[in-house]
């Protein structure tokens, strides 16, 4: 991440044998990251497809949107429809829409913080405003921290979600829903984790020597990855959580 970009000014035409300009004028790593994101589309489509294919195919509960009585193995839209079922045998719908709505909002806002971080780095050379509050708003550190914290908050929500699901009787081994749900969201969570580590690395550079407009590309690439992980969640939130 910290290595010097191929198109950095100190390479541009100072020596006769320096690297020739790229064919498109674009940076190598940015092209590679977009190709990587294209590839990731297929990865998440495979995972999401599997979840959708197995939706409604589990032979036993708990289920994402339905109530389930283990003793009679019956499914119902509501607790009332379930009829007679001992409390210990009753499993409520697993997915917790209020909590996930909150975590979805957190991840969306992390994308906002990310673009503001990029804007701050791009404008790092401009004279700083005098007001303390304005200075904070203009600082790349502020927004990188904000993004990382919001990302970590999302991961915290996910950890809460996973543990509460396990307490409610759903593990990755329980049924097809459990296997496909935990694998899909786990893969997404792993991507967020990598993103947070990436942001922390950028923050490390920022504290060490300050991120300058010349570093905008490094931030841009991390941002592209971060936003992609966000748009994947937009799809997951609708397809897995909201559609019943």
């Amino acid at each position, binding site marked *: 991440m910290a290595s010097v970009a191929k198109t950095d000014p100190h390479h541009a035409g100072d020596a006769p044998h320096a690297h020739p300009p790229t064919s498109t004028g674009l940076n190598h790593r940015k092209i590679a990251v977009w190709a990587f994101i294209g590839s990731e589309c297929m990865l998440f489509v495979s995972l999401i497809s599997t979840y959708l294919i197995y939706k409604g*195919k589990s032979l036993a509960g708990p289920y994402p949107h339905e109530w389930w009585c283990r003793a009679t193995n019956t499914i119902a839209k509501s607790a009332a429809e379930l009829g007679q079922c001992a409390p210990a045998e009753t499993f409520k719908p697993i997915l917790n829409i209020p909590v996930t709505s909150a975590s979805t909002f957190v991840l969306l806002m992390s994308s906002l913080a990310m673009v503001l971080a990029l804007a701050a780095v791009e404008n790092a050379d401009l004279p700083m405003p005098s007001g303390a509050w304005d200075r904070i708003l203009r600082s790349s550190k502020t927004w990188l921290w904000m993004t990382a914290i919001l990302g970590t908050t999302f991961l915290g929500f996910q950890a809460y979600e996973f543990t509460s699901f396990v307490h409610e009787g759903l593990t990755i081994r329980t*049924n*097809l829903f459990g296997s496909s749900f935990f694998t899909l969201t786990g893969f997404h969570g792993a991507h967020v984790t990598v993103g947070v580590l990436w942001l922390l690395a950028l923050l490390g550079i920022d504290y060490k020597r300050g991120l300058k407009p010349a570093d905008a590309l490094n931030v841009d690439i991390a941002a592209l990855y971060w936003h992609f992980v966000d748009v994947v969640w937009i799809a997951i939130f609708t397809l897995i959580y909201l559609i019943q």
Partner: protein
Amino acid sequence: MATMAAPVSGVHAESSSPSGIWSWLTTVDHKRIGILYLVSAMFFFVWGGLEALVIRLQLAGPNMGLVSADMYNQLFTMHGTTMVFLVVMPLSSAFFNFLIPLQIGARDVAFPRLNAFSYWVFLFGGLVITLPILFGLAPNGGWFGYAPLTTKAYATGYNIDYWVLGLQILGVASLAAAFNFITTIINMRAPGMHLMRMPIFTWMSFVVQFLVILAFPAITVALVFLMFDRFFGTNFYTIAAGADPLLWQHLFWIFGHPEVYILILPAFGLVSEVLPTFSKKPLFGYPVMVYSGMLIGFLGFGVWAHHMFSVGMGPVADSVFSLTTMLIAIPTGVKILNWISTMWGGNIRFTTSMLFGIALVGLFTIGGISGIMHSSAPADLQQTDSYFVVAHFHYVLFGGAVFGIMAGIYYYFPKMTGRMLDETLGKIHFWTFFIAMNLTFFPMHFAGLYGMPRRIYTYDAGQGWELFNKLSTAGVILQGVGMLVFLYNFIKSWRSGPVAGNNPWGAPTLEWALPSPVPDYNFAHIPTITSRYPLWDQKADELVKSEAETTVGGRLKTAKELGIPMPFPTIRPLIAALLMSTMLCSVLFIHAGNLPLAMTIGIGSFLGLAFTLVSWLTSPLE
């Protein structure tokens, strides 16, 4: 179209490049990495060929007992897996690495260290899959590894574990290489090297890289599910829990069919370089060749279920996939016609390379036509799982991919090593391969139509299969003879073949403007391209600096003397690849019931990998 005079210069670049094992372990030079791919893949080629030999000896007559049924399963699984992932793909990679920068006028790939990482990951993944056969523990579920047969309920041993892990490791290698080459081709073309001036090999490689980045995620996901099922008790392929037995098949073939084009398009590209050179004519219909390659790649994502006609998908799905499959025949047929038209009226020289190229056109057509037969679902129901299918895909993969790669090896050996392969031995190799190939695989059409199923380890007499099997076995033995001739020629010529000039074949593409072997910096100055066939249409001094400027005291100048910045050699990619492989393989100890050890190795490797990556990313490239 004046042919550029090809002065046979005695200048050798070898003297200026370091040698010794360490220089190969730390190399980030795309040409050396290409040679590493080539040599490793040839090793695996011999290995996979020996497996085929044992298979054929076992099937030479009815009720033979050379190997057990279990060993036979391991052999055919490993033969397929080896030839697909460890031979044809890396042989293609050898050419991607060696040729793409030279053909587009670049000094290296976009990410030289990532390139080295790809190679080492490939090597370790290959060893994880290959070595277990020495202990009778090789994967035994077929190269397609159909789940649920490969889940722990039906495959309790370690065998499938090696396959699941090895293929995931190999996937990382292919993906990393694909991002690298996509970036290289988009971004490192010399001035004037417009997309529509790129050599066809580079074009086909470009298409293949997109197939890789889109196909490999699907199999990665399928393998992750299988790995989770086997090691962590998930239910993706557990039918008793309601799983669909077709999930694996669909995910696998979403990868598997584009994979077929990943295997064949580079060979098509190589042949599209060889045929014009030895016909002394530009490639017929260059733009159509480019577009048909792209179309093959695109349509390749819409045909996967034609591998599954016999599972009962219903008439609508069968019809749709039949139609899309038949559609692919059009761009492929266009390519065949363009190659024939390229040779038509040309001044043909029958070098070994050209012979392999012409043979590809014929043999691939045979395999292509039997492929069109399968595209019809009712016909496929008769042929599926029989030796007819084995005949089909060996015609396209051996007659197509391997023959194309052989054409490429004979053609580019001088550029890689600076020496010529022996043409007499080469022709012996070609004719034995050509005869042996047809002797082996043509009778399989008949064996299949007479009802001989695939993957059986023995059969009873009196079903009309004996003769065909005898012929096939004889053919494989003859192939072995041809391979020995080739290996002898390869080793002998590398050591003491006649010195090749820059352009021994009078070829038109940019790589032939460079000295053979190519110096580590490739181009002393970056040329400006004004033609699709620069060496036929442009003057030599437009492409390369004069000998006076690039040599000193009878040897080529080093990068330092020319002031060209070169990437530092580094061991980090190798270490990162090794640690990534051990990290994945640590789950094997879960199977052994030793969770603490698995955790220790896994986490230890992960930390080591993280440390190596930080050290890699913070060390300067050049």
